[in-house]
C-alpha cells in the first residue's frame, strides 16, 4: 500500500546536559514514536538528502548517527502503514548528544492530504510556497497580534486593511476584501469582513495551530478566485487524530499599546471511542495608544469558544462541534470618510459543524471527507447614543464532499469534490439593501503529476452562484433589482522544474472568477460606520482575470533565496468609481461599483541566510503596482514597497532578534485617496522554551515600534487623522501538555 504522509504534533528536543565539544563533527540520535500509542516504531526509514544515505531505526525505534557537520539537513521519515514525513533540521552544537523525537501518524488516522499542513508538505510546490507564508510554532507565537491581520503583517506580500485595530483584515498583493478568502481548516469562515472595512474577522488567532497562505492551483479547492491566495487557519476544531492521553494548550497574552490581555486554552480528552474537545479564548483591549494621543473608541472585547465530541471506530471518524464568537468593538469617528462620532459594533456568530472522514484505502480513493455546517451571524452597529444604525443578519448552510485520491498511474495524488453554500442575508436599521438569498454550488479538482524533476499541478473549478433579492424583482434608484445568476469556470496550472538539487523554477498560469457580492450589486446608500456613499450596480458581471506568476527558488544548507514576480491582468475588475453625481442629502460624491480593466504587477523577494550556526538573517521585499488599464491611473489602496529584515540568534532554548520594517511613501493614489509617507520602525523579540512539570512552555517578549515613531499605514481608512500604534510591548506565554 502506497504511503504518504502527514505528521502531527511537535518536535520535542531533549537536550542533554553535556556541552558540545569543540569538534568538527557531531553525533545525535533519532527516536521514532507512534503518535497514537506513543510506542517506538522499528524499521522506519530515515533518508538524509545531503548525505545521500538512508538509515533504519532499530527494534527500539532508535537510530544513532555520527559524523555530522554543522548545517541544515533535509530528512525524510517513512514507514509502511504511516505517513511519510519531511523535515528540515539544523545541526548545531546545541544538538550534540541530543535525541530528536518524532511522532508519526498511522495512515488511517491522518488528516486528508488536501489540507496543506505545516511542517509536512504534500508536494514540492507546497514546500516552496510554505517558505513564503506559513506561521506556526515559535514563529507564530512571536508574530501573534490581537487580530489575524496583525499576526500576518510581517509576511511577505501581506498588508493590513484597517479602520482601527479591531476590523483589520489581511490584504495580499494589493488584493483585499472578498478577493482574499479566509478559511478555517479549509472552510470559509462565513462572516461579512470582506464586504466593508468596519467589519471584523470572526476568528481569533491565538488558539490556532498554524496560519498559512495557500497559493497556486490548490486554491481552487476553496474558491474560484485564483489570484491573491487563501489565508487558511489550521485550528482543528474538529480533531482527526486519535490520542490515548489528554492533550492541549494553555496560553496568555498581554499587550501594552492597548492595555490588552488575552487568555486561551484548548483541550482534547479521550474516552475511547469518544473524544471530547474544547477551546476558548477571551480578549479585552482598551483604546489604542498612538505616539501622540489615544485613539478613542477602539476598544474591543471578544469571547470565542468551541466544544464538541468526536468518535473513531475502525476507519471512520466523525465529529460534531458547537462554537460561538461574541465580539464588541469600536470604530473611531470624526474624520472624512468616517462616522462623525464613531460607531460601536456588536457581532455574534454561532457555528454548528459536523464532519466525517472515512478511510477506504481503495485503489483510486484513499478517503472521503464529508462536512456540513450551519452559521448564524448577527452584526449590529450603534451610534453614540446607543441607537441602532445598521444591522446585518444571515444564516448560512454549507457542506462539502471531498474525495482524496491515492497515487494512480496517471496522477501522483489529488482530490476532487463538490460543495454548496446557501446564505439568507437580511438587513435592519438604516441599511437600504434588500434582503437577499445567495446560493453557490461548486465542483472542483486538484491534481499533480511528476516526471523526475518536473512537477505539474493543475486545478479546475466550476461554480454556480445565484443571488436572489426579496422581492424577486423591483425598480430602484440604481436600476432594476432582480435575480442574478453567474456560471464560472476557473482554472490554474503550475509547472515546477527542479533544475538542480538546490534550484527550482515554478510558473503558474490561471484564470480567476469572482461573482459580485450582494453589496456590489444592490447597495443603495451610505454605510453607517464607513460613512461612504457607495452604491451598487445590479448589472455587474462576474469579475474575471488572468494571473501569471514566475517563482525561482534556491536553497542551500545555510541559504535560501526566493524571487516571485506576478501579473494579474483583469479585463473586468470591480471597484467603486466616481459617477460624477452628488448625493444631494449629504453632499457626498456618489461612487458606484463598475467593472473596469485593471492590471496589478508586483514582485516579492525572500532571502534567508545563516551567518553561522546560530545567527540567521532574513529579509523580504514586497511591491505591488496597480493601475486602471485604460487611463493608466493608480488603483486605490495599493500598499507601498515594504521590506522587513530580521536578525535572529537562536538555539534550542532561546530566540533573540531585532527587526527593521521599512516602507516607502505611496504617492500613486486614486481620487480622494491621500498619499502616505515612508517610514522605518524597529522591533525586537526574545523567546525562551523550557519544560515546566509535564508542559513544554514558551514565553515570548516582543517589542514593536520601539522608537515610538509616528507612521501611517497606507491601507488604513483613518490614516488621514490617526497614525499607527506607538511603542508596543507584547508578552505571550504558551504551555503544551
Amino acid at each position, binding site marked *: 500500500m502506497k504511503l504518504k504522509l502527514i505528521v502531527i504534533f511537535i518536535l520535542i528536543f531533549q537536550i542533554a546536559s553535556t556541552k558540545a565539544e569543540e569538534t568538527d563533527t557531531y553525533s545525535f540520535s533519532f527516536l521514532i514514536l507512534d503518535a497514537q500509542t506513543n510506542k517506538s516504531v522499528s524499521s522506519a526509514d530515515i533518508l538524509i538528502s545531503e548525505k545521500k544515505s538512508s538509515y533504519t531505526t532499530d527494534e527500539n525505534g532508535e537510530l544513532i548517527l555520527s559524523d555530522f557537520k554543522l548545517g541544515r539537513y533535509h530528512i525524510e521519515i517513512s514507514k509502511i502503514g504511516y505517513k511519510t514525513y519531511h523535515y528540515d533540521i539544523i545541526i548545531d552544537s546545541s544538538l550534540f548528544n541530543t535525541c530528536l523525537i518524532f511522532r508519526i501518524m498511522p495512515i488511517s488516522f491522518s488528516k486528508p492530504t488536501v489540507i496543506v499542513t505545516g511542517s509536512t508538505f504534500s508536494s514540492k510546490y507546497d514546500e516552496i510556497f510554505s517558505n513564503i507564508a506559513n506561521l506556526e510554532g515559535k514563529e507564530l507565537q512571536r508574530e501573534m497580534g490581537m487580530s489575524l491581520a496583525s499576526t500576518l503583517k510581517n509576511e511577505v506580500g501581506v498588508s493590513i486593511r484597517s479602520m482601527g485595530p479591531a476590523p483589520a483584515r489581511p490584504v495580499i498583493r494589493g488584493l483585499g476584501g472578498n478577493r482574499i478568502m479566509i478559511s478555517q481548516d479549509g472552510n470559509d469562515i462565513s462572516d461579512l469582513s470582506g464586504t466593508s472595512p468596519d467589519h471584523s474577522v470572526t476568528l481569533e488567532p491565538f488558539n490556532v495551530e498554524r496560519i498559512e497562505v495557500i497559493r497556486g492551483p490548490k486554491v481552487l479547492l476553496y474558491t474560484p478566485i485564483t489570484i491573491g491566495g487563501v489565508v487558511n487557519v489550521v485550528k482543528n476544531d474538529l480533531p482527526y487524530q486519535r490520542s490515548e492521553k489528554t492533550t492541549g494548550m494553555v496560553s496568555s497574552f498581554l499587550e501594552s499599546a492597548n492595555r490588552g490581555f488575552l487568555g486561551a486554552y484548548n483541550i482534547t480528552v479521550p474516552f475511547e471511542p469518544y473524544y471530547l474537545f474544547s477551546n476558548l479564548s477571551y480578549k479585552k483591549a482598551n483604546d489604542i495608544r498612538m505616539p501622540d494621543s489615544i485613539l478613542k473608541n477602539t476598544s474591543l472585547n471578544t469571547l470565542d469558544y468551541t466544544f464538541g465530541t468526536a468518535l473513531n*471506530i475502525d476507519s471512520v471518524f466523525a465529529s460534531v462541534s458547537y462554537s460561538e464568537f461574541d465580539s464588541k468593538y469600536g470604530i473611531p469617528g470624526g474624520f472624512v470618510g468616517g462616522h462623525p462620532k464613531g460607531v460601536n459594533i456588536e457581532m455574534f456568530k*454561532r457555528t*454548528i459543524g459536523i464532519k466525517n472522514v472515512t478511510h477506504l484505502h481503495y485503489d483510486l480513493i484513499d478517503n472521503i471527507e464529508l462536512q456540513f455546517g450551519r452559521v448564524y451571524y448577527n452584526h449590529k452597529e450603534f*451610534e453614540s447614543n446607543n441607537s*441602532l*444604525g445598521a444591522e446585518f443578519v444571515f444564516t448560512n448552510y454549507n457542506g462539502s464532499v471531498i474525495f482524496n485520491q491515492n497515487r494512480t498511474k496517471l496522477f501522483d495524488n489529488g482530490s476532487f469534490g463538490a460543495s454548496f453554500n446557501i446564505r439568507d442575508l437580511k438587513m*435592519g436599521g438604516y441599511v437600504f439593501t434588500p434582503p437577499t438569498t445567495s446560493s453557490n454550488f461548486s465542483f472542483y479538482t486538484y491534481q499533480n503529476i511528476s516526471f523526475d524533476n518536473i512537477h505539474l499541478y493543475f486545478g479546475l473549478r466550476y461554480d454556480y452562484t445565484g443571488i436572489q433579492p426579496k422581492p424577486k424583482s423591483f425598480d430602484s434608484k440604481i436600476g432594476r433589482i432582480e435575480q442574478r445568476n453567474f456560471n464560472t469556470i476557473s482554472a490554474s496550472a503550475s509547472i515546477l522544474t527542479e533544475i538542480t538539487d538546490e534550484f527550482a523554477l515554478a510558473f503558474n498560469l490561471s484564470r480567476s472568477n469572482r461573482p459580485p457580492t450582494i453589496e456590489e450589486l444592490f447597495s443603495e446608500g451610505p454605510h453607517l460606520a464607513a460613512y461612504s456613499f457607495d452604491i451598487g450596480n445590479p448589472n455587474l458581471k462576474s469579475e474575471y482575470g488572468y494571473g501569471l506568476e514566475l517563482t525561482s527558488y534556491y536553497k542551500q544548507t545555510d541559504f535560501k533565496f526566493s524571487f516571485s514576480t506576478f501579473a494579474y491582468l483583469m479585463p473586468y475588475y470591480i471597484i467603486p468609481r466616481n459617477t460624477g453625481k452628488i448625493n*444631494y*442629502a449629504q453632499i457626498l460624491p456618489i461612487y458606484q461599483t463598475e467593472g473596469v480593466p485593471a492590471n496589478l504587477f508586483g514582485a516579492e523577494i525572500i532571502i534567508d541566510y545563516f551567518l553561522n550556526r546560530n545567527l540567521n538573517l532574513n529579509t523580504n521585499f514586497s511591491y505591488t503596482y496597480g493601475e486602471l488599464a485604460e487611463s493608466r491611473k493608480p488603483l486605490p489602496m495599493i500598499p507601498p514597497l515594504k521590506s522587513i529584515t530580521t536578525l535572529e540568534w537562536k538555539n534550542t532554548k532561546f530566540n533573540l532578534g531585532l527587526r527593521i520594517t521599512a516602507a516607502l511613501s505611496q504617492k500613486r493614489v486614486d481620487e480622494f485617496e491621500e498619499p502616505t509617507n515612508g517610514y522605518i520602525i524597529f522591533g525586537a523579540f526574545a523567546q525562551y522554551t523550557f519544560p515546566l512539570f509535564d508542559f513544554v512552555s514558551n514565553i515570548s517578549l516582543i517589542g514593536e515600534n520601539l522608537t515610538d515613531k509616528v507612521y501611517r499605514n497606507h491601507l488604513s481608512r483613518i490614516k488621514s487623522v490617526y497614525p499607527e500604534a506607538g511603542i508596543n510591548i507584547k508578552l505571550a506565554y504558551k504551555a503544551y501538555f
Partner: protein
Amino acid sequence: MFNLKLLIILLFGIFVALLFYSCSESSPTENDDHYEAAGLLLKQGNTVYMRIFQAKIDNNYNQSISLKTGQESLVFSVVFLDEDGKELPEPTDVNKSFGWVIDDNTVVSLEYDNKNKWSFRLKGLKEGTTNLELRLNHNDHPDFKTPKIPVVVGK
C-alpha cells in the same frame, strides 16, 4: 457495525439538537423610516425666502440672508423637499432633529425655539459675512445638509 451506526446516529442527533437550539436566533430590527430629503424651503410665514434643491440655492429666490447688526430676523420655518421637489411633512421620528453649523459665530447667532422644532431666527452680531449650514440630523449624524448659505450682516 451496529455500534458504529448507533454512534453516528447519536452524533447526528446532537447536531439536530443544536440546530433546534438555534431557533431562538433573532431577526434584524427593521426600520421603515425612509424620510429622504433632497432640499428645503426657508419660509417666512407663507412666503418662500430661499429654496435649496439638489445641493443648489435656487436663483429664483434669495441667494443669501441679509441682516443688520443687532437685528433679529423674522422666524424662518424649514420645510423639507423630496426628490421631486415636493414638500415633505415634518419628520416625526424622535431620532430626527434640527441642526446647524455657523462658520463664524461672532458675526451671527441662531436662536432656536424648542417648542417649534423646525423654526429658527438669526441675529446679526457684528458687521461681516459668514456661512450657515442647516442640517436634518439623525441621531448624531446628518441625514441631510444644505450647501453653505451666505449670511451678510451690515451696519
